[in-house]
C-alpha cells in the first residue's frame, strides 16, 4: 500500500509538471524536443551546441521544489466516518480510497494523503485543519 502511495505521489508530481496529458507523453515530448534542438544545431553547422535546454532546467527546479507531503495523523476523537468524508471532500477521492486512507491513519498512526507542490499542499493542510483533522506538511524523503 505504501509503495502504491509513493508511486501515486510521483504520478501527481509528474501530472502537475506536465499538465493534463496522458501518462508518459510529457517525458516523451521532452526527449523529442532535446533531439530536435541537437539536429537543428548540426544542420546549421555551428560548433556551439544548445546548452542545457530551458525545459530541462525547469524540470530540475521543479523536482527540487515538488516533494511535499500532506500527512494526516491519528486522533482518537474524530470519528472514522467523519475522517473518510473529509478525505472525499478535500481530495475528491472515491469512497473506497478515502476509507483506505482513513484506516491507514487509524492503524498505522498516519497516512500520506497527497504529494506535490508546496503551495497546493499548504492549501490542503489548511482545509484539513478547517475540518479539525491533525494534518501536517512534510518534505518527502
Amino acid at each position: 500500500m505504501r509503495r502504491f502511495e509513493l508511486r501515486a505521489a510521483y504520478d501527481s508530481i509528474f501530472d502537475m509538471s506536465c499538465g493534463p496529458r496522458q501518462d508518459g507523453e510529457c517525458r516523451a515530448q521532452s526527449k523529442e524536443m532535446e533531439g530536435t534542438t541537437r539536429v537543428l544545431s548540426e544542420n546549421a553547422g555551428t560548433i556551439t551546441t544548445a546548452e542545457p535546454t530551458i525545459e530541462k532546467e525547469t524540470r530540475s527546479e521543479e523536482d527540487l521544489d515538488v516533494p511535499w507531503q500532506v500527512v494526516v495523523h491519528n486522533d482518537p476523537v474524530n470519528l472514522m466516518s467523519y475522517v473518510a468524508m473529509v478525505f472525499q471532500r478535500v481530495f475528491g477521492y472515491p469512497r473506497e480510497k478515502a476509507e483506505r486512507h482513513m484506516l491507514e491513519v487509524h492503524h498505522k498512526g498516519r497516512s500520506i494523503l497527497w504529494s506535490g507542490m508546496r503551495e497546493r499542499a499548504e492549501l490542503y493542510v489548511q482545509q484539513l485543519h478547517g475540518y479539525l483533522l491533525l494534518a501536517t506538511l512534510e518534505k518527502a524523503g
Partner: protein
Amino acid sequence: MEICRRKGVIEISELDPFLAELLRQIPASANPDGAPAAEQRLFSTPATGKESELCAEWKTYVEPELRRLFQTATQTVAADLEQLNCNEKSLGNRTLRIPSKHADAWLSALNQARLVIAAKNNFTESELNDHCHSPIGSRRDLSLFQVNFYGFLQEFVLREMWSD
C-alpha cells in the same frame, strides 16, 4: 429521543430536559478559552520539525481564518438551538429542527465541542472507546457521556449526508 430527517430538516424530537441541556451546551463546550490543551488541539501546528517559518506564518495568516470558520459554525448552531429556549411552562419533551443546509455547521460545532472536552479532560483512547461505560457518577463521566452523545449526533448527520 428520536432523530429523523424529513423534508430537508433533521428533526430531533422527544428531547428530555437533560439531553436538551447537553445540546444547549454545544457552543459553550466548543470554546477552548482558558484551556491551552484544547486551544492547541483546535489550532494544531501545520508542520513538525524545523519548519518554524511556516508555523509562524500559519499563526499570523491561517489561524485567524480558522477561528472565523469555527466561530461561524458555532454561531449557526447557537441560532438553531434558540428553539430550545422558548418560554414554555412545561419542561417536557421538546423538538429541535435543524435545516439540512446547516449540517456542515453542526458537524463542525459538534466536532469542536468533542475535541475541546476531550482535551480538557485528557481522555485516553480506551476511555473514548469504552461505550459500555458505567452510569454517570462524576463530572468526568458526564463529560465522557457528552463526547459520546455529540458523536452519536455527528454519526447521524453524516449518514444523512452520505444518503444524499
